[in-house]
């Protein structure tokens, strides 16, 4: 029986590639789009808030106050975008979105200091972007805390492992690759099967002696191959263009990628068993992809999610794969450190696949 199933599988795969080849636009999209996207978004993602446009309201107008302002701006985080005479003018500029911080230096700085009283400094922040306001607040407080202070009692000596300069790209680009991959693989499988249903060829296959595991395997293998190719291209581009290191073993990476593809393709198949039309398949695929991408921990860390949300992310294949990619590429981790992740991917993938298979079978009766 085995050669028989293999012949069928080969026929399915050949047919799938012939269909892809019949519309070269699709092939181009499948192969070029992930890489191009990776390059664009890889350049775009940058979490470092390096510049906060700041308005200075210097009511003291002495050489002391001017010196403080200069030193405050020295490290480049706060950038002087406006000098305002009145706090109200500065606040109006903030309303308009021109500045994100206002620093008010009161009159009589030197006099206050002479009386051995702390001089009051007012800082007003635009709170819309939490990250930016945090950066601005800590830059200002750090400066004013060290003015005229004796050497500190305790000093922090940080040492950063695996990405010492904390560049955004090395840890974001692998995650982006995973995101881009889920779009290609999940949607295409879901819609491919739905299209066969719409056109009626699925019924014709079902009356032939192809068993459903063979059918589903034949339906996903071509896209698994394309997905694997895409991953290779994306990671290659990532390491060439964005200096993402590749410290781990490639074999491990390939295994992990295949397990990951098992779950994205499995999700596509599951959607396809529910959907009657391509349109429904697309929407189903979308409702899987959107939460998977946004709750993957790539753009905002899982640690920042509310506690009750964290267990939900255990079900997200993207989350595991992104952790694998980061640990493998940046730290060189392998089976020893990441076996839990592999097991999770395998569990999620095979559950999706088997559920799709069972649903597919029972729907025929």
């Amino acid at each position, binding site marked *: 029986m085995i050669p028989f199933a293999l012949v*069928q599988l080969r026929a*399915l795969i*050949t047919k799938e590639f012939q269909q892809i080849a019949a519309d070269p636009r699709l092939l181009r999209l499948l192969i070029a789009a992930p890489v191009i996207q990776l390059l664009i978004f890889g350049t775009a993602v940058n979490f470092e808030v390096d510049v906060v446009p700041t308005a200075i309201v210097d009511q003291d107008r002495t050489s002391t106050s001017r010196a403080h302002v200069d030193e405050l701006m020295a490290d480049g985080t706060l950038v002087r975008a406006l000098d305002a005479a009145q706090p109200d003018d500065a606040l109006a500029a903030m309303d308009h979105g021109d500045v994100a911080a206002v620093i008010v230096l009161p009159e009589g700085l030197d006099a206050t200091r002479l009386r051995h009283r702390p001089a009051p400094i007012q800082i007003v922040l635009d709170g819309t972007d939490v990250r930016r306001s945090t950066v601005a607040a800590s830059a200002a407080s750090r400066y004013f805390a060290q003015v005229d202070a004796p050497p500190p009692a305790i000093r922090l000596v940080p040492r950063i492992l695996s990405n010492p300069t904390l560049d955004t790209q090395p840890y974001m680009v692998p995650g982006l690759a995973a995101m881009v991959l889920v779009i290609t693989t999940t949607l295409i499988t879901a819609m491919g099967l739905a299209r066969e249903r719409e056109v009626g060829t699925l*019924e014709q296959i079902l009356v032939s002696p192809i068993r459903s595991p063979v059918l589903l395997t034949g339906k996903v293998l071509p896209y698994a191959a394309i997905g694997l190719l895409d991953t290779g291209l994306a990671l290659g581009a990532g390491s060439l263009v964005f200096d993402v290191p590749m410290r781990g073993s490639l074999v491990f990476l390939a295994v992990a990628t295949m397990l990951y593809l098992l779950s994205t393709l499995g999700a596509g198949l599951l959607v396809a068993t529910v959907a009657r039309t391509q349109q429904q398949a697309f929407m189903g695929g979308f409702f899987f992809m959107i939460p998977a991408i946004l709750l993957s921990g790539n753009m905002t860390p899982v640690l920042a999610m509310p506690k009750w949300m964290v267990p939900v992310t255990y079900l997200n294949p993207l989350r595991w794969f992104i952790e694998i990619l980061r640990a493998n590429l940046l730290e060189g981790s392998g089976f020893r450190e990441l076996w839990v992740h592999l097991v999770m991917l395998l569990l999620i993938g095979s559950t999706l696949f088997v559920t799709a298979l069972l649903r597919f079978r029972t729907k025929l009766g």
Partner: protein
Amino acid sequence: MSGRGDIEVDHLRREFGKFVAVDDVTFQVPRGEIFGWLGANGAGKSTTIRMLIGVLEPTGGDALVDGISVRKDPFGVKRRIGYMSQRFSLYPDLTVRQNMAFFGGAYGLSGKKLNDRIETVARDVDLTELLTAKTADLPGGTRQRVALGTSLLQEPGIVFLDEPTAGVDPVSRRMFWDLIRRISGQGTTVFVTTHHLDEAEECRRVGLMVDGKLVALDTPAALARDHVPGTIWRARAVGIQAAVPLLVGRPGVLDVQPFGSELHVRVDGLPKEMLDDWLRPRFPDLTLEQGRATLEDVFLAVVGHQEET
């Protein structure tokens, strides 16, 4: 074609919930026969076929197709038969050859064997020049031929054709039936459903379904004899349709049916002269010819009878 090539249906039954789509059907089809399976829309024809090809499980009874039980080994059945569904679909974006290669592969054919079969079948259904054409570009009738050819790739002992000529023009239909006869001549059993009763006359035997039940089964001639008693006279004249009220209810007249521009008058031992006497005064250009009951007459008689009871 090593199998037995026959079909034995034994008290086959299928329910959908409370609804009985196929109700206790029993019959046999010997090898090489063209067997017609007729019935109104929703009578249960496709449901019967779907059980016989191993896709739909019977809720009662069983059938041996090519000697294999559809209950016990539906996959064994699938591998031995060919099937062309009511809505056979090919991949529109692939060529005829690519389509055939795929479906051949689905039946386990590969390599030289597959290529030989594609060539042979393409010759059988007159498609050789079209193998490299894109399927989407073919006209409907040709696509049906491709579909038929595709269902013959694995050299099945039996082919099931569910309304293969629906929506096909008359010329292509005639060509298609030439093919069916050719296939049957090669020893393949053909199980075919159709709504074109003139086509069904070509079958060796036909079975008639009404509401899931098999109500008649025989050769077209025997069905006509048994279900449409008496003699049929085909009356032709200008405006002959107006004669219906003149004839209905007369002693000896069993049935009056308009049939195209003719009137089919079925009588019970009534001599031709009598009819002539009744009609000639009103229709001077009358001609009367003895006719044979068509399957359409049979169909109407049987279905009408079923509805009365």
